[in-house]
């Protein structure tokens, strides 16, 4: 009798365990135990045509680590957060990349794909809304092209073109003292090389210089406003983000240019807008740094040029620009 009772108790225990454990696990999952503060967000990457990032809108809190598990549903993608120093990671199908990001400042960040996954690669973006104590109402100053009221879409041909390629090395030699008003950062950023050339030409300081020598001085002004480090940084950013369309040599004939044209034709009915040619002196010498920075920040609006405002920091845009002018000036 007792043996039978023990057997029945054992059987009951086994049944309760077999049924109860899975149910308990389900309840725990439903109740959200183990989630909470250090929850992990799983993000799937897909081609922009197939929906891009899912989810594409994240929220985070200042100072609290945002833990992400990244994977891809089709091809190789990359993940990076704009305006931040977190290193980009690769997101491969069939693999999970874990990354943890902590934000120091509140605001709206943009994350984006860093591997060329297709012609719509640059459309793979998402946002991270970072909430936090807004102790300092950081009023961001508008970009320079807004302050100056520049029209980014107006043509900007240079009215004077140098006969030979301007060289900063030669420009450093003549010993012509550059009037101090030309060497300030504000003046430099608001004026095109051609305008600086005209101003220098009219200045009594350059009376003894030939036209080509004045161009060399202009090249020297441009080099004085960049550093070797910013040129290296600009070259790196250019290679990673710009060269695919604008070409490694800056001639606007990058490997993606052809497919970009056919894609634009399909989307907008026009495909004539080619990537800008940075080796064209008429274009490059007629544009001020503020104008070109505006084009980078705002993007091309229907031309296939992405808007880089949420991705590149201000110093990064200046670094890219200082590299761009090396295509027409030494």
């Amino acid at each position, binding site marked *: 009798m007792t043996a039978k009772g023990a057997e029945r108790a054992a059987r009951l225990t086994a049944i309760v365990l077999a049924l109860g454990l899975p149910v308990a696990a389900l309840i725990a999952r439903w109740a959200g135990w183990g989630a909470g503060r250090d929850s992990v967000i799983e993000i799937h990457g897909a081609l922009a045509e197939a929906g891009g990032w899912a989810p594409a809108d994240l929220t985070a809190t200042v100072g609290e680590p945002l833990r992400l598990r990244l994977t*891809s549903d*089709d*091809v*190789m993608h990359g993940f990076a957060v704009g305006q931040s120093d977190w290193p980009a990671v690769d997101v*491969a*199908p*069939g693999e999970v990349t874990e990354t943890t990001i902590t934000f120091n400042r509140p605001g709206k960040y943009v994350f984006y794909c860093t*591997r*060329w*996954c*297709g*012609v719509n*690669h640059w459309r793979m973006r998402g946002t991270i809304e970072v909430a936090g104590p807004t102790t300092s109402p950081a009023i961001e100053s508008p970009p320079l092209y807004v302050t100056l009221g520049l029209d980014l879409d107006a043509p900007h041909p240079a009215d004077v073109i140098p006969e030979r390629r301007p060289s900063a090395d030669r420009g450093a030699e003549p010993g012509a003292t550059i009037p101090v008003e030309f060497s300030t950062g504000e003046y430099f950023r608001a004026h095109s090389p051609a305008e600086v050339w005209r101003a220098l030409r009219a200045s009594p300081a350059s009376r003894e210089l030939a036209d080509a020598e004045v161009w060399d001085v202009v090249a020297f002004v441009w080099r004085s406003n960049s550093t070797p480090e910013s040129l290296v940084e600009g070259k790196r950013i250019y*290679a*990673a983000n*710009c*060269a*695919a*369309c604008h*070409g*490694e040599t800056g001639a606007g004939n*990058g*490997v*993606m240019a052809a*497919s970009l044209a056919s894609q634009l034709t399909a989307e907008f009915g026009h495909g004539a807008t080619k990537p800008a040619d940075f080796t064209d002196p008429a274009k490059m010498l007629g544009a001020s740094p503020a104008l070109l920075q505006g084009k980078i920040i705002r993007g091309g609006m229907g031309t296939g040029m992405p808007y880089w405002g949420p991705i590149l920091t201000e110093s990064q845009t200046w670094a890219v620009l200082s590299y761009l002018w090396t295509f027409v000036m030494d």
Partner: protein
Amino acid sequence: MTVALAATTIAFAPVPAATVTPVERHIRIEAKSFEYSPAVVTVNSGDRVTLELAATDVVHGLYLDGYDLNVTADPGQPARLTFIADRPGAFRFRCSVTCGPLHPFMIGKLNVGSNWLMLRAVGLAALGIVFVTQRCRGAGAQRNL
């Protein structure tokens, strides 16, 4: 007996030493829509080879079998791989980055020197055919007697 000796010779005879002096080679391989161009690269044994991989549509990679080398190139950022081709033979190279639906079929071939393994196999096969036909003929002759 003669056949066995011939087979051993074909299979194990030492390869004549390479007479060509190694050179520096720079080969640009373009990767686009699941194919490499050129897809077959031939070098001499001992050459110092630089493969420049240029992707022209999406990110591609190149993993070289036998040498265990890998390189990845995004459009606009050609990447280089330099190595000394000291292992003779034919080696496949394949895309190492999932680039799209036909990614598994994106392959190419690197030939280093003459493909002695292939030549030996052909030699042995020819010897086998000769041997079998001889025996058949011999058997037929015996039956006719």
